[in-house]
């Protein structure tokens, strides 16, 4: 009996009237944990009962404590008939099970009923006495801390980051059990809520056990999801990153208590090193073993066909080392989905299975389906195996690699769900790796053997791992998994960012070691992570590499896509922005295998187009890197939808992106040409406008310095277009290839035009707004404390009778754009502000219905400071650059008088006309055509440069005045702010919610535990509750309220890393019914305002170094 749970029911308030006759209620409470139930006395005739009960004590195992929720039911006593339930409260007592979190749960909880919503509140006190259990074979994992935050939590220090933990449990969905036919909707909903609560408790416990086996003490980046597989069951799965964390006390320097465990940790791997298998968590549980065994006798069959990767996108290589170019070969048999399916019930059409190519010289550039088809991502044939140390890396790099390798190779999956890392952890980033597979769901016959699902995920993870390897990376960071289910088809997706990590963190992890390591490594901060991890010599794909624009020592790709947050040390020019690619694809309605086949046939095209869109939009904004990339593919009855969101930035280390060039195919058609040139002009204008908007004024570097070793011309990314809705027709993508017959061209034209149009229809946010989907907005760092987290949900009917891909695309695009517009309008009072962590989720609940849910947080910032602060981060780069600029200012002017001579690749101008008409253009010709415009570009950038200069001068003079003006209003603002809390003696404490891991202007002092809640709401009087909107509005508000109440009861005042993982909405207007399921999670924390912390007014050194104006702000 290692635990005693104590519960006291204090009082209720605002109970609903249950007795019509007296307009009162005779309420009592049932307290249930496991199989034990206690009851309070009936408090007669009151809507505000004062039970003030004794302490109800439950003596239970800690295993039970972890799995079971505390269940509190409020009922109305009825002498003659059955007692009526008023509602319930489920309390997850997990936060009480580890010492550093909450010690007591006490407060008012909303009483929730799945039919009526919140009905009054109840005041409860819960405590746990935990006895130490030294049993080594225990099944519980009390004490392991869980965090949703995908970075090392603020008041902790990572001693060791152990790595990936995953688990899943399955069960039958109560909604689909036979008993559901005879029980009430309420009973069924409650059964479901309870089951999921139980399952997530169990899941967490099992993950905890794995962490303990790895000798960790915490899980960071914990992501738990539900798959409602309908008939075939209910899957709860979770992934996370096991860590050993040390609490940072305020004076962290001397803390022997903290140090000793870390020392232990240090020795453990040492001892076990010779025998890495024992160290790896692999065979710890029986479940785990099963994930390994792909025994053919299983009920599923897998068809991991590497052939199907190449089939559609047969590549064509440019004969010269041209650089990145993607061709879709016109004659390739499109997705002739090849290999015969096995006649088993489950079908895996691996979206991506790519084996690293072996030959050192792979001439055909293979365009792969799942690993995004990009220059920067294309897999390196020879990963780390081939002695890949670059020339400057030297033997150390090799050594490092081997070290990392050995540390990571022991692991089954070297994955990390983190998106932000301690400094020095991330050495290099390869690019995004992703894998998808389409599965047919089958009934889960035995809930105790979830191996089928386990195996599915294991396959996907293997694939991801091999992709990462192919990119020369040993690890995957920013890793996440998701599913999309429609009827019996399920798409499993996983994605992450291939990366090379610092091994020190993974082993003994003493910070000192890390620092040394970093010094030895000598990779310059701010650009090191951009340097390619793969071997440039054996690169099988034509990535365009240049020397890093920051350190000029190592190679960088021209574009970088990642799923992680922008590393803090990264040097960014200007601001970032939210970039979305949106795509719809019609699909024939089909059953089972046919359906799965058609979906998996469509997937590669979708991925490809999503990627093309992202690339074009990125270039259109004059940026060169994407962070936080999340591609969601949703499957519906008759269509697939793809939505990719990411935050574009301009990394100073990467080369300036080229523009977008449109090439027509019929050069002799005058009007057409004109049209093309018109479009081209529009695009160029947009790019220029965006550069201004996002303040992208990169320091121009002399071409000679960077260009010489790799003499490629600067590349344009061409606007590529695939015509692939009918699966047997694939047109060539590169429009400059003109050897096409007129027929294809026509279709192509309208298509391409529409694409261009859609590019240009993306409206930038109104002034005063920025948006991003990462934690913080690059280029803004003077946040003010006002935040507003929100969830917006829209369901739209695609009302086209004969929908085509184009109209659907447009509808979908409009839907997203309108939603964003509406958000900007709603939050207009917060201007200037930034929408951070904008998270779109798309679902296709029914035919023709599209549901989009957005959760994000709006954070205000100080505009006056923005100008200065904006300068501050770039100062480092600017300072050096500015001297360059001085010189350059003259240099380009000379240059502009005689530009051609100084351009290395502009000998021939006459080839320009030829470029579009000829096929298989020689490299030289294309280079010239490209270069010509690049010259124009350069001219532009000089002008910009001059503008920039002028601006900085002007800004400098303004700065002094603004800082003077600012001093007093700001001080007032602070005062006002401080006076507000003193005035708030309202009975309800304010709980902030944010999807970010931090609160601006505040310091998180304590993590109280994970919040993971699942609610079902149902109504049979939809019209009376205000229709679907009224129903969902109330429900979301209720969910927020319940989250806040739980946090407040834990003693917290905020939820960080809040996420709404699921929002499943179903309606039946004819029956006046609707049902909705919402799953949310986050970390409950206590934060303290920095302004309140300023008891000892010691501004951080960085702030002190800033101009007087801003330093003054800090101290006010």
């Amino acid at each position: 009996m290692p635990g005693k749970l104590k519960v006291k029911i204090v009082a209720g308030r605002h109970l609903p009237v249950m007795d019509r006759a007296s307009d009162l209620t005779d309420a009592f409470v049932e307290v249930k944990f496991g199989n034990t139930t206690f009851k309070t006395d009936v408090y007669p005739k009151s809507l505000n009962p004062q039970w003030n009960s004794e302490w109800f004590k439950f003596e239970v195992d800690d295993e039970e404590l972890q799995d079971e929720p505390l269940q509190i039911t409020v009922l109305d006593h009825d002498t003659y008939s059955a007692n009526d339930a008023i509602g319930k409260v489920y309390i997850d007592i997990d936060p009480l099970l580890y010492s550093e979190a909450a010690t007591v749960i006490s407060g008012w909880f909303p009483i929730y009923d799945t039919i009526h919503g919140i009905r009054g509140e109840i005041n409860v006190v819960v405590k746990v006495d935990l006895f130490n259990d030294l049993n080594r074979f225990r099944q519980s994992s009390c004490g392991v801390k869980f965090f949703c935050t995908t970075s090392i939590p603020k008041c902790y220090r990572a001693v060791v980051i152990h790595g990936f933990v995953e688990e899943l449990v399955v069960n039958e969905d109560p909604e689909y059990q036979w008993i559901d036919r005879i029980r009430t909707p309420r009973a069924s909903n409650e059964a479901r809520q309870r089951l999921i609560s139980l399952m997530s408790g169990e899941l967490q416990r099992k993950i905890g056990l794995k962490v303990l086996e790895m000798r960790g003490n915490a899980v960071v980046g914990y992501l738990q999801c539900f798959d409602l597989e309908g008939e075939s069951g209910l899957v709860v799965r979770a992934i996370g990153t096991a860590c050993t964390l040390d609490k940072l006390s305020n004076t962290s320097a001397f803390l022997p208590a903290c140090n000793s465990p870390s020392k232990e940790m240090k020795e453990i791997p040492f001892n076990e090193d010779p025998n890495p298998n024992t160290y790896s968590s692999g065979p710890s549980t029986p479940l785990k073993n099963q994930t390994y065994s792909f025994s053919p006798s299983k009920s599923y069959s897998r068809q991991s066909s590497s052939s199907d990767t190449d089939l559609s996108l047969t590549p064509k290589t440019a004969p010269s080392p041209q650089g990145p170019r993607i061709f879709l070969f016109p004659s390739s048999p499109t997705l002739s989905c090849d290999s015969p399916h096995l006649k088993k019930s489950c079908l895996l059409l691996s979206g991506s299975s790519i084996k690293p190519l072996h030959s050192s010289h792979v001439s055909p550039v293979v365009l792969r389906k799942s690993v995004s088809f990009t220059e920067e991502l294309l897999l390196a044939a020879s990963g780390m195996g081939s002695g890949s140390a670059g020339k400057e890396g030297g033997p150390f790099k090799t050594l490092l690699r081997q070290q990392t390798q050995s540390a990571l190779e022991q692991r089954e999956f070297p994955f990390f769900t983190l998106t932000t890392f301690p400094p020095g952890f991330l050495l290099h980033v390869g690019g995004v790796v992703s894998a998808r597979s389409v599965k047919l769901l089958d009934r889960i016959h035995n809930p105790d053997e979830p191996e089928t699902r386990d195996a599915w995920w294991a396959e996907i993870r293997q694939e991801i791992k091999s992709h990462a390897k192919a990119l020369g990376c040993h690890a995957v960071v920013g890793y996440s998994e998701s599913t999309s289910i429609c009827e019996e088809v399920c798409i499993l997706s996983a994605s992450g960012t291939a990366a090379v990590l610092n091994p020190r963190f993974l082993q003994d992890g003493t910070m000192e070691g890390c620092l040394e390591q970093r010094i030895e490594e000598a990779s310059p901060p701010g650009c090191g992570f951009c340097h390619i991890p793969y071997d440039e010599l054996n690169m099988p794909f034509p990535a365009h590499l240049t020397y890093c624009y920051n350190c000029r020592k190592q190679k960088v790709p021209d574009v970088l896509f990642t799923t992680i947050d922008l590393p803090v040390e990264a040097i960014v020019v200007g601001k970032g922005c939210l970039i979305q690619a949106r795509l719809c694809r019609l699909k024939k309605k089909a059953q089972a295998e046919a359906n799965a086949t058609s979906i998996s046939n469509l997937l590669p095209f979708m991925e490809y187009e999503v990627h093309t869109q992202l690339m074009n939009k990125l270039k259109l904004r004059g940026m060169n890197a994407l962070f936080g990339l999340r591609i969601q593919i949703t499957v519906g009855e008759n269509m697939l939808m793809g939505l990719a969101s990411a935050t574009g930035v301009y990394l100073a280390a990467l080369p300036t992106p080229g523009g977008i060039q449109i090439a027509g195919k019929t050069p002799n058609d005058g009007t057409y040409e004109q049209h093309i040139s018109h479009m081209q002009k529009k695009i160029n204008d947009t790019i220029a406008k965006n550069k201004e908007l996002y303040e992208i004024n990169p320091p121009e570097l002399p071409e000679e310095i960077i260009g010489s070793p790799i003499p490629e011309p600067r590349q344009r990314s061409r606007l590529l277009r695939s015509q692939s809705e009918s699966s047997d027709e694939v047109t060539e993508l590169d429009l400059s290839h003109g050897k096409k017959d007129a027929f294809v061209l026509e279709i192509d034209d309208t298509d391409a035009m529409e694409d261009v149009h859609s590019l240009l229809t993306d409206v930038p946010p109104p002034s005063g707004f920025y948006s991003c989907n990462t934690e913080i907005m690059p280029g803004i760092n003077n946040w003010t404390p006002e935040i507003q987290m929100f969830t917006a949900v829209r369901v739209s009917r695609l009302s086209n009778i004969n929908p085509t891909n184009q109209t659907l695309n447009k509808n979908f695009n409009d839907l997203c754009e309108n939603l964003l517009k509406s958000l900007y309008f709603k939050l207009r009072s917060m201007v200037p502000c930034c929408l951070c962590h904008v998270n779109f989720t798309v679902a296709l609940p029914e035919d023709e219905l599209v549901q989009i849910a957005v959760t994000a947080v709006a954070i205000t910032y100080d505009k006056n400071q923005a100008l200065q602060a904006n300068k501050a981060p770039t100062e480092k780069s600017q300072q050096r650059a500015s001297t360059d600029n001085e010189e350059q200012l003259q240099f380009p002017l000379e240059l502009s008088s005689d530009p051609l001579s100084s351009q290395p690749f502009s000998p021939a101008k006459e080839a320009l006309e030829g470029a579009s008409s000829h096929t298989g253009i020689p490299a030289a010709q294309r280079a010239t055509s490209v270069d010509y415009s690049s010259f124009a570009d350069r001219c532009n950038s000089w002008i910009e440069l001059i503008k920039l200069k002028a601006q900085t001068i002007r800004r400098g003079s303004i700065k002094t005045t603004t800082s003077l003006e600012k001093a007093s209003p700001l001080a007032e603002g602070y005062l006002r702010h401080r006076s507000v809390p003193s005035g708030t003696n309202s009975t309800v404490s304010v709980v902030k919610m944010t999807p970010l891991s931090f609160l601006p202007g505040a310091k998180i002092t304590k993590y109280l535990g994970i919040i993971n809640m699942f609610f079902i709401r149902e109504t049979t009087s939809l019209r009376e509750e205000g229709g679907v909107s009224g129903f969902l509005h109330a429900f979301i508000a209720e969910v927020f309220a319940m989250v806040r109440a739980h946090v407040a009861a834990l003693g917290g005042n905020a939820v960080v890393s809040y996420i709404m993982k699921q929002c499943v909405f179903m309606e039946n207007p004819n029956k006046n019914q609707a049902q909705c399921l919402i799953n949310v999670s986050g970390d409950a924390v206590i934060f303290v305002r920095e302004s309140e912390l300023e008891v000892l007014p010691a501004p951080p050194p960085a702030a002190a170094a800033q101009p007087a104006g801003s330093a003054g702000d800090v101290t006010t």
Partner: protein
Amino acid sequence: MSSDLDVFVGNTTLIDEEVYRLWLDGHSVAEAVARRLRGGVLEREGTSVAVLQSDTRDHYRTFQMLERLLHAPPRLLQQLLFQIPPERQALLVQRYYAFDEALARELLGKKLSKGTKKELDEVSARTGVGIRSCRRQFDNFKRVFKAVEELRGPLAENIQQLFLLPPALARDYAAIVFFANSRFETGKRRLQFLSFGDFAACAQSMMAHWSQGALAPEAAEPDGDLPKSFLQDLKELKVLVSDKDLLDQHKRDTSGMGVPVLGGPGFGGSLGGGVPALSRALVNVGGKLTHARDVRDFFVDLVEKVIEPCRSDKWSPGDLRLFLTHYTAAPRNLPGFRHQALWERYMAAISACLLRMYHD
């Protein structure tokens, strides 16, 4: 493409004051959108009508959900469903309970019953306040009335506590409740020149001086009712007019003391004859208050018997003040008059009312 479902929920509930105003005024979503359009939001924010519609609908839904809580403002403070900063909560309540004085004036003294509610159409037409807004305001009056009807202690304070209203608004509601309770007649033509403010001020002085709470805070009777014993006692004052000696003495004293001011030309004569008439009127008004029907005519009587004669005599408000001061003080010297305290208590409110009502 149509949006079937469109919601926006913030952790901190967004309140748009303009939309709240429109909602309170009883406009439908379509009307509200039209008005906002006319306000020029579109140009200012560069957004679309669809966005405005969706925004307005969101706010309307929020307000509809909040309305239930606004009916019991302390619940708004305690509820967990909407996180609203305290100053915003105060604003919501204040605006919800704010009323149009024209409407309140129409309803003063009327029974807050279903019957009255049915007549709101006419009231709405007369006052120009939207019918939906009229109904909401009427329901507010009724709700406040019901809530404090049976409560002891000062009316305004009770209202302030139960509805978290700012003091001035609470006092106005107290007046409304007071009038509704005693059913004073305010609709007569000759009373039309009196505004809601006038009546509210009168109600406040009457409650301040006459109610039991004014004398003993732990009074048994609610403040909204005029205390029976007091009204009964007022009959005793009739001696001032019934007893010839006292009447004469009173007249003399009043006139005597008033000579320096009131003795002016065109004054003295009429006053000489006027004082007994006024005196009789003033005392009789009090004496009649025991009968509910006469209570209703309280203001009619004051206007008819006091204000109109004074007005026809061209008294200035200053004259009236002076007269009332002396008239109230005079009985102090009357031999054998034992109701000095009662008299002064009575006259304090009467004087305040008269002075307030004495205008065009």
